[in-house]
Each structure stands twice: as C-alpha cells, then as structure tokens.
C-alpha cells in the first residue's frame, strides 16, 4: 500500500468499530492482510511503507516484529466480537510488504499460526506471501508450505538487466526461474509481478520480460504499468531530467502486447493488471478487495475494511510498536462510508474486474452512458446485453475514464 495515509476521522484508542461494520458481515468473506515493513534495499520507484534498517526500536525491529504483529492479531480478535462481528474463519491470508521473506520463514509461520489459532482457516483457504526472488531458498519455501502457505508471489519486475538496474532491483534475472522451481517443488502456487514502461525499456525489452515470465510457467502474472509515485527517488530523477519520463502511449502499446502474449500462453485477464491460468488461479485475496469483502490489515500503515468502515494504522513501525506495547489500538484514522460513497467505490472497483458490474446497479445516467461506452468500444456489447458492464481491451486501458462516465450525474 502507498505509504501516504489518507485524511479521515480519528480512530478510538480501543479500536472499537462503529455499528455499520457488523451489518451483513455473515455474507462477506473475512480476510487477513499482514504487512511486513522491511526491505534490504529501497527500490527507486517504490513508495510502499517499508524500511531498510534492521533496528527500528519499540518492538518494531525485524527480530521482534512477529511478536508485535501477533499482539495486533490478539487485539483484533477482541475488537471484532466486541464490535458485534461474528467469528468467521479466514478465507484468505496475504503477507505483503516490504519483503515478507526478509523475515525468517519461521516468523511468518508463527504469525500464520497465531491467526489460525484465533480464527481458523476456511476450507481451501488461500495463503499468499510476496517475496523477492533473492530472498528465498528451497528450505525457506518448504518451511512456508509446511506452515500452511499455498501461494507465493515473486517480484520479478523484468528480465532485462538494464531495466532491473533503473528499477534498483538487486536480483539476478537467472534467479527467477530457479525460485519458481523451488516454490513448485515445495507445492506452492506461483505468481510473478512484472513492471512495464520503465524509462529506457524498449518494446523488445518488454517482450523479453513477458516471454521470460511465461517460460517460468507460473500460475498467475501481474503486470503493472510503472507508476511514478510522488516523493520517490524515481520521481526526483525524472524531475531533474536524469531519466526520461514515462509515456502513456508506450504504456498502452505494452499493455496490448502483454494481453496478446499472455492470452496466447493461456493466461486470462481477470483484473486490469492481473492474469491467471485458470479461474482457480486467480488471487482470491485481491478479488476480495475489489468485491468489497471484509479484511483486517495488520502491521504499520496497513488498511482494513469491514462493511463500509475503512481504517488504517499509524505508519511508522516504532509508533506502531509503541501503541501495541501499551495496549492501544494502532489505528490512526478511519472513515465510515455512507451508502452513496459505498456505491461509488463499488462501481470504481467492480468495473476493474472481469465479473463486471450489473447494469441494474447503475443510476439512470450511468445506464444511459453504457450505450456510448459500447459505441466507443470500451464496454463489451453482448455482455451488456446480458446485463453486465464488462470492459473490452480498450476499455481496460481507459478504465478510469469508463468509471467516470458510469458515475456521471
């Protein structure tokens, strides 16, 4: 998650949620996100809430971190019932970062273990960790699998050395197929993250990366257009003219290329930046985000959502550790969405995924906009005829514009 926190209302010290959070909870999946805020180096494009120092103080250092995080899980297990939410087994768990695999696999296992004790895992639960290719070994992956992890997502980004260099990535491209093989041997499902449109990346470079990713035979691929986040080293380099800026047309070309290559290799898109080999290989955790399910986000800066209540934790690991050590909720702020805002979010998120949006969920103006969107080639005509607004390839590239048109009033 981006490290700049939104503005919201203050959150109470006991972490209790407003009544709205509990309404209808039984019908929503319950998920857990665990944030691990450590990396060995900070990549120039990245604005995630992550730190390279080993020692951060207040129970936030790498070797004390699992204990601190478990304290938040314990808090969650009290807050949820106290706020009227039913006990639900976890349908998915996702360890993200930062680089979760920078912690010993046994720490990750311990956190997962605590979560399982507190809530239990639903049958066929999906348990993912992000990982940097050079932060795993066959043994660590075995340990994770044995602890109940089912899936690993590697930050491959590119297969081309000069592109990896601009991205400040430290791994050897050779390491990726190797790590994928180890993960497979451990029985884990595998996803690869790619970034396209890096300054200096040619179309041929991107083809090389796509082919290399496909050759690894993962179950799932995420391909992200490089976002120049404010305040990052990359943004400064572009501003100073040290590296060329990014070009939306180049992004569009590369997105189209990704769709063509991935489709030919048997991957189907299911979200703007995500493709999976089969429906079962889609990332259920991320789908829960887009479908408006409930999740608890644990860790500094982590965001949570329960029934239209969104909240987020204090950003710095030391502040986070400090709060938990004194029994205070680490929540920094929150917002309770009204019906109209939830509707807007629903349109915004649902449009991005292959499920699409039911036409009847739109207002009269939005429904009127659909015909124009079909005419412009952005929305699939036959699907709309069946009552679903689903993006075409061109529509995916212009998804934000489509959402604005659907929400016009």
């Amino acid at each position, binding site marked *: 998650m981006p490290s700049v926190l939104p503005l919201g209302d203050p959150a109470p010290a006991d972490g209790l949620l407003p009544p709205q959070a509990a309404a209808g909870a039984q019908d929503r999946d319950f998920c857990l996100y665990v944030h691990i805020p450590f990396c060995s180096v900070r990549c120039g494009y990245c604005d995630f809430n992550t730190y390279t120092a080993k020692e951060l103080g207040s129970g936030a250092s790498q070797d004390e971190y699992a204990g601190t995080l478990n304290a938040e899980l314990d808090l969650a297990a009290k807050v949820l019932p106290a706020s009227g939410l039913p006990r639900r087994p976890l349908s998915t768990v996702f360890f993200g970062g930062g680089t979760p695999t920078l912690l010993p696999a046994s720490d990750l296992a311990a956190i997962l273990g605590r979560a399982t004790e507190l809530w239990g895992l639903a049958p066929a639960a999906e348990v993912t960790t992000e990982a940097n290719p050079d932060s795993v070994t066959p043994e660590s992956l075995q340990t994770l699998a044995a602890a109940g992890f089912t899936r690993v997502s590697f930050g491959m980004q590119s297969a081309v050395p000069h592109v990896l260099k601009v991205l400040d990535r430290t791994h050897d491209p050779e390491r990726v197929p190797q790590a994928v093989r180890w993960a497979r041997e451990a029985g884990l499902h595998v996803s690869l993250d790619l970034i396209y449109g890096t300054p200096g990346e040619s179309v041929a470079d991107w083809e090389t990366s796509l082919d290399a990713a496909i050759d690894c035979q993962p179950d799932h691929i995420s391909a992200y257009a490089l976002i120049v986040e404010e305040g990052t080293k990359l943004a400064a380099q572009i501003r100073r003219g040290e590296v060329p800026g990014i070009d939306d047309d180049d992004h569009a070309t590369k997105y189209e290329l990704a769709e063509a290559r991935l489709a030919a290799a048997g991957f189907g898109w299911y979200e703007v930046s995500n493709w999976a080999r089969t429906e079962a290989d889609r990332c259920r955790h991320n789908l829960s985000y887009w479908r408006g399910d409930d999740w608890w986000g644990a860790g500094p800066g982590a965001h949570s959502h329960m029934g239209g209540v969104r909240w987020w934790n204090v950003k710095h690991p030391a502040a986070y550790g400090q709060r938990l050590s004194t029994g205070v909720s680490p929540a920094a702020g929150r917002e309770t969405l009204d019906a109209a805002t939830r509707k807007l979010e629903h349109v915004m998120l649902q449009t991005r995924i292959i499920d699409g949006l039911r036409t009847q969920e739109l207002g009269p103006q939005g429904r009127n906009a659909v015909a124009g969107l079909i005419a412009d080639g952005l929305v699939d005509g036959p699907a709309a005829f069946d009552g679903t607004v689903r993006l075409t390839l061109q529509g995916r590239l212009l998804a934000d514009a489509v959402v604005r048109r659907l*929400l016009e009033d």
Partner: protein
Amino acid sequence: MSPMARTAPVPAATDPAIIRNFCIIAHIDHGKSTLADRMLQLTGVVEQRDMKAQYLDRMDIERERGITIKSQAVRLPWELDGRTYALNMIDTPGHVDFTYEVSRSLAACEGAVLLVDAAQGIEAQTLANLYLAMENDLTIIPVLNKIDLPAAQPEKYAAELANLIGGDPEDVLKVSGKTGMGVEDLLDKIVRDLPAPVGNADAPARAMIFDSVYDTYRGVVTYVRVVDGELKPRERIQMMSTRASHELLEIGVSSPEPVPSKGLGVGEVGYLITGVKDVRQSKVGDTVTTLNNPAPESLGGYADPKPMVFSGLYPIDGADYPVLRDALDKLKLNDAALVYEPETSAALGFGFRVGFLGLLHLEITRERLERDFNLDLISTAPNVVYEVTLEDKKVVTVTNPSEYPDGKVSEVREPMVSATILAPNEFVGAIMELCQGRRGDMKGMDYLSEDRVELRYRLPLAEIVFDFFDLLKSKTRGYASLDWKADGEQVADLVKVDILLQGEQVDAFSAITHKDKAYSYGVMMTGKLRELIPRQQFEVPIQAAIGSRIIARENIRAIRKDVLAKCYGGDISRKRKLLEKQKEGKKRMKMVGRVEVPQEAFIAALSSDESKDKSKK
C-alpha cells in the same frame, strides 16, 4: 515660508477672489499623488499621524497597483501675505485609459500644475494632458518633481518644459513630493499665479457636475464646481438635462473627509447628496440649478467616454450570471465609462459583452468584479468595434467577432487612433519599424529637445491596444512613452478567423484580424489549444478557418491510457478521493460538442500573453 492657515475660509461665504482651483496633471507615476500628500500635510487638513503614502488613492486596487484611477478633489486652506485662501486641488490619474477623468477635472479648474519627473523628462501623457489643459484655457504651472533623485536632471528638463510651454527655464519650480522640498513655494505660486474663479453671484445657480460616485452609505455623491449663484442645503435642485428635481439633503466640501457646509458659492468645489440611488440621475457633465430660480442656459457638458475595446465576460459557474449582472449594475454606478449588454456564447453560456476604455480598465473592472462580488470570470480576447457594410448597404456594428455577418460584406471599417510616441532619438528607427508593421501612417516628427523626439502616427486601434505598448517598451529599453486618442475610422482588409474543435466552431475564439495576420493568429491559437486541451478518448482536430477555408490545423491524438495500474486494499480510499475530485473537476469543464475543454484552457487561451501585466502605461 507660509505658515499653516489659522482660520480656513468658510464655504458658502468665501469671496471668489480668495479661491484657487487647480489640478495636478502628469504622465503616469511622475508623482502627482505623492505631491498631493505633501499638500494635505502642509495645509494641515490631514494630521501627521493619519498620513499615509498616496493618501487620496483610496481604492484597494489603487493602493495595490500604486496608481490613481479616480480623480479626487480636496479643499485646502493656505495662508499667504496674511490672507487665507481656499485652494481646491484635484489629483488626477496618469494612465491613458483614464484620460477622460483628467478632462473632467480640468473643467472644474482655472489652473493646472504640470508635473514632470526630473529624472524622466517629458513623456507622452505629459504632452497629452498639457494639450488638454491648454484646450481648456487653463493657466499652467510647470513643475519638476523628484529632484531628490540622484538621476534627476532639473536643468535639462526645465529647458524642455520651458520650450514647450513658452517661458523661462528659471521659472520652472523644482520640488520633491517625497521630501516636501519646494512644495510650500509651489502653494504660494498657485495662489499668486492662478486666476481666481469668476462668476455671477446674483445670477441663477449653475454648477457643473464633474464626478458622481455611488456610496453604499450615502447614496450618490455628486461633485460640482459652482459657476454662478449659490447652492444651499434643503433647497430643491434641478438637473438641467432631464429637468428632474431633487431635494438637497447635504452639501459640503471634501477636506479630504466630507465636511457639510451651509452651501457652495461662486467658484467653489464641493459635493451634493440628494438621496438618488443611481448615478445616471446625476450625470457627469450635467448642470445643476435650483428649481425655484432655474438658469435659462446650461453650461457646456462633456462627451461621454467612448468604449474602445470590448470583451465578453462570463461567469465560470453559469449559476452566477445574475450575480454578475447585479455586480455590473453596481460598478456602473461609479463608472460612466462602463457599458455592457447581455450576450450568449455557445461555448461559454450566458454573459455580457462589455466595453472598456482600454486594457487596464478591463483588467481593473474584472478584478473588482471578481474580488468585490466573489465571482470567477472568463473574459474573452478583447477586440475593437467594426462597422461592417453589407452588399445590400446595411451597416452592422460588430462588437463581438462571432457576430460578424456571414453574408456578403462590401466593406469593413475599423477604428483608428492618432498616437504620439516620445522617445530618445536613438530609437526612432526601431519605433518607425514597429509602427509600419502595425499598419501605421506617419503624420509627423518633432524634436522636443536635442535628443528627444515626438513621433506622430495614425494607426488602427486594434494594432496598438493590445501588445503594442509592451513591444514599444522593449524595443526602446523602456524609454518610449505612448499616448493615443480616437481618430475616426478607415476601410481595411479584415477577415474573421474561426476556430473549430472537431469541426465545431467555438465562438469564444473567433477573431477579426487583418488579412495579413489571419494566418499567424490561426497558427497561434490552434497551437495554443493543442497544448491546453487534454487528450480525449477520440482524436480532436483543431482548425482555424476563414469562412470555409482552413488556414491552420493541429491535432490532439486520442488518449490511449487512463487507468491506474494498481488498486489494492490500501489504495482504495486514495483512489476514491481522486475520483471524487475528478468528478468535481468535470463540472468546470465546458463541452464543445463532445470535447471536454477545461475552464483553465479557455482562460489560458483567451488571456493572450500580451494582455498580461498591462497596468503600467
């Protein structure tokens, strides 16, 4: 040295022989208002502790810009040789847009202090205002100001002044409005040299209205100079042009705050309050008389100021249209030069076509509308007025390019000006080149002194009113000054250039230009719009056309990507807020056909780079 007056002469009981009416006239920034400050101080009408620089520049905009926009009249007592005189001093604006303010003020005076910056010498408005004063047959006191400046060349410019007015350079007074040096001598000289007003005290009252100001608290305040007879409170007065009569609720003098009096007699300058709410009922140039004993003949009036440039003013939020209408009505109360009528633009909605005296007047009016009435406005590119004769001999007056007749045009006439440019002689070549490029016709050239030249040109107004002055300044390292006044019209080879977005004409961008400049306008505007209009989901051609002939073309390529790559749990709130902001932003979009044009693009495209920073002329 004259001591400060101990007893000021009482209005209504003042012998005309001890009255002196004068105004201070000069080129812009030569120090009129600062000199007026010293006079306010020396005569004791403003206490030391209340004093502030350019005391009489009271409007916010005057203070911020450091220029005078409205004339101000003040009654000052001054003692000389044991006698106390009543001086009426009028501080006038120097900017060419407000020349009409100067001419009104002159009509209330017998004399004028012609002020010249001793470091700059004579400039174009020095001449223009001097000629105006001479036409009014005023006695002129030439004065060099700012002699405290190290760069001052009093001897040189005293000679220039003497040359111009006729007289001895020795007689040119040298003062500093800043230090006060020489100002007492100047006041003495005003008393000695200026004629006292003459009038018939026993005749029916006649007073000339030289200013009329709307004040929220007091209603319309009318400034008059009494010529004959006397005006007294609670008398019924009559406006001679309309025969409308009003009761005189209050009468008095400004000193500089209003001081009610028992009346105003021959030669006196003061104000009247009748309770009317509209300055049009108390029109500048009209003659005031009394209902009981009306004068048979009015004093000569002045011509209404004539708007020279027109621009469309549109509220950015269409719902503000009634606010804009009321705001214009209110400003009009204080600004006889402001004319407007409603118009609609396909691109901009409902607004007004407003006539101005020049670009500074436009800028100031717009600023006041925005500031005082909390409006956000778009003003379209300013243009001059054209007289278009159709083949059927019908004549159409075009104040808005989009009204340019489509039918068969037999002749187009454009307004002309006669312009005076003063500059050191080394720049003559550059100035001539500039004027020729602007279709100017040289009418004459004179040496004012060894190295200072006056060039006279007849030029189309449209060629000088926008960017000409800036170019002139830059080509002469800031040394040239310019003055102009309307001078008839001429037939010219003019065309209307339209701008089309996706084939749809955008009326707000149409312009009437000389045939030779149509192409460069087209290229400039289409280029600008290509930069300003964001890419849309489809390709947008931008064309410039004369009739059906395309003269320039640009293209905005369709946008191919508009999606945020990542939207996970922690991104959702941020992304939603962005979306809400974009939805809000969409309200500030104007639709031209299917093309979304941000307001900012209209504003940026219409605020020609030239029209910026025009305040100082």
